[in-house]
């Protein structure tokens, strides 16, 4: 076998030895065809049950397919952070701490966790969300920035800096808008795990290309993609003045989820 030959992963562009069936960086099946719709949306790779991949000195194994579990085996000194309610189980040896955030009161009032939990290796910790869907593995290279909708982030490795912004008005579910998490890599690559409800599709917009997305379906975007609130001339009830959509303008990736929750619509 030629040791210089490599298979490039279609999803994360990571390089893999030719005998690998799944990508070592993101777990995507290497021999499976990536499904792309006529309109340019490609499906997130369906991770095989028990797929394992590495990040830093730790590993992640994806278990189950309907509501997948991310089981992280953390190396000594490595740590990951997440919202505390996604924690499924952990080994007693895994030390826990919290990452304080500015604006905790606003987050609390909006139903967001006001602190982020941090799990420190060595040891194992397992995380899952509470909805049918897909896990999206996004290895982030240095200087990358990714914006993620509220309650979609499952875990992030410590190399990623975390902040959040509130987007006013961008919601058909609640009049007060939504929070958007922002993950930025510093000098080293990091790993971000998301949970998309239903199926997850991604599309890369060209410079200036535009698309309108229902805010509940938005999952993530490169920070280079501009997002603006737009009102469609569709009344959703007697007293409503129109339906809000998110106008995304390229360049960059946009991810959507096919199952979204409407709690208070007209």
């Amino acid at each position, binding site marked *: 076998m030629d040791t210089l030959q490599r298979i490039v992963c279609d999803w994360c562009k990571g390089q893999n030895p030719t005998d690998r069936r799944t990508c070592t960086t993101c777990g995507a099946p290497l021999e499976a065809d990536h499904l792309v719709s006529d309109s340019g949306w490609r499906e997130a790779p369906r991770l095989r049950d028990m797929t394992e991949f590495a990040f830093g000195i730790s590993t992640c194994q994806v278990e189950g397919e309907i509501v997948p579990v991310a089981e992280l085996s953390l190396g000594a000194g490595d740590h990951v952070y997440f919202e505390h309610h996604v924690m499924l189980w952990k080994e007693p040896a895994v030390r826990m701490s919290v990452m304080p955030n500015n604006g905790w009161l606003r987050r609390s009032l909006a139903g967001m966790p006001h602190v982020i939990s941090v799990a420190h290796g060595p040891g194992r910790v397992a995380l899952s969300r509470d909805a049918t869907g897909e896990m999206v593995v996004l290895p982030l290279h240095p200087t990358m920035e990714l914006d993620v909708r509220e309650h979609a982030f499952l875990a992030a490795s410590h190399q990623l800096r975390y902040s959040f912004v509130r987007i006013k008005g961008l919601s058909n579910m609640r009049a007060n808008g939504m929070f958007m998490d922002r993950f930025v890599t510093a000098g080293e690559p990091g790993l971000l795990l998301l949970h998309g409800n239903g*199926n997850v599709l991604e599309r890369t917009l060209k410079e200036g290309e535009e698309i*309108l997305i229902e805010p509940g379906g938005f999952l993530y975007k490169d920070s280079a993609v501009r997002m603006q609130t737009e009102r469609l001339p*569709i009344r959703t009830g007697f007293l409503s003045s129109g339906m809000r959509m998110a106008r995304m303008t390229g360049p960059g990736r946009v991810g959507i989820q096919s*199952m979204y929750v409407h709690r208070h619509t007209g």
Partner: protein
Amino acid sequence: MRTLVSNSGWSELPPVPDMARIQCGRSHCQIEGTYVPVIDFTLAGGDHVYFGHHELLWMEPAISVKAMSMRGAWTRMRAGLPVVMSIATGPGRIAFSKDLPGEVIALPLDAGNAVDVREHVFLVATGQVGYDYTESGIWFVTGQGNDAKTHYPLGRFLDRFSAGSEPGLLILHAHGNAFVRTLAPGESICVKPTALLYKDPSVGMHLHLEYPSGTLRGWSTRLQNRYVWLTMKGPGRVAVQSAYEHFEDPREAITRFSGTRHAW
């Protein structure tokens, strides 16, 4: 692909392969994903589809969207149905999805054909398919006088979709798996009201209350056990979904109802 049929005669709707394309006139749609499938329409210039606004996932800015006028907006709102539906006109692309895991059902309607659909199951239909709604006729009343309350186990209304002079395409979303069965003339079956997906207009239906033996009759109605069924009578197709909402029986004495009852 082989159709899977149970011993009792229910056919599983064949799963739509991921990225399958369905042609409808000059337009076509593609079905993406398998947990919560997305219907991605590519509309030709002048072609249109209509939908409830909850179902819109994304669209190209070139698509023109406007409200579809509907009769009885106040009644619909009180019955928990969408007050307005929307029309999207091509050229361009637009995509829809429901917010429940399940299957997409593509029902091509030949000219002159119609189908009755339970509320909240409809996803999108092409412009050739006409829309109307009728009283379901499935109800019972608890209490008397000022305390009288009417309950609608199936929902107050049924959606009716019909193709006029041209064939059209109707897309529904089933929660869980979908099964269809063709009833012979006079053949009957009881189904849970919230499990019904659609039926041919030729299939009759009525409410059926069933009281099992062994319950404390004559005591408080709260201790009585009863089952609320929908009796479907052929000829024609009946489709059900495997994941359905639980109908909350009020556990009060029924003073009036629209169908039949049987005590074992």
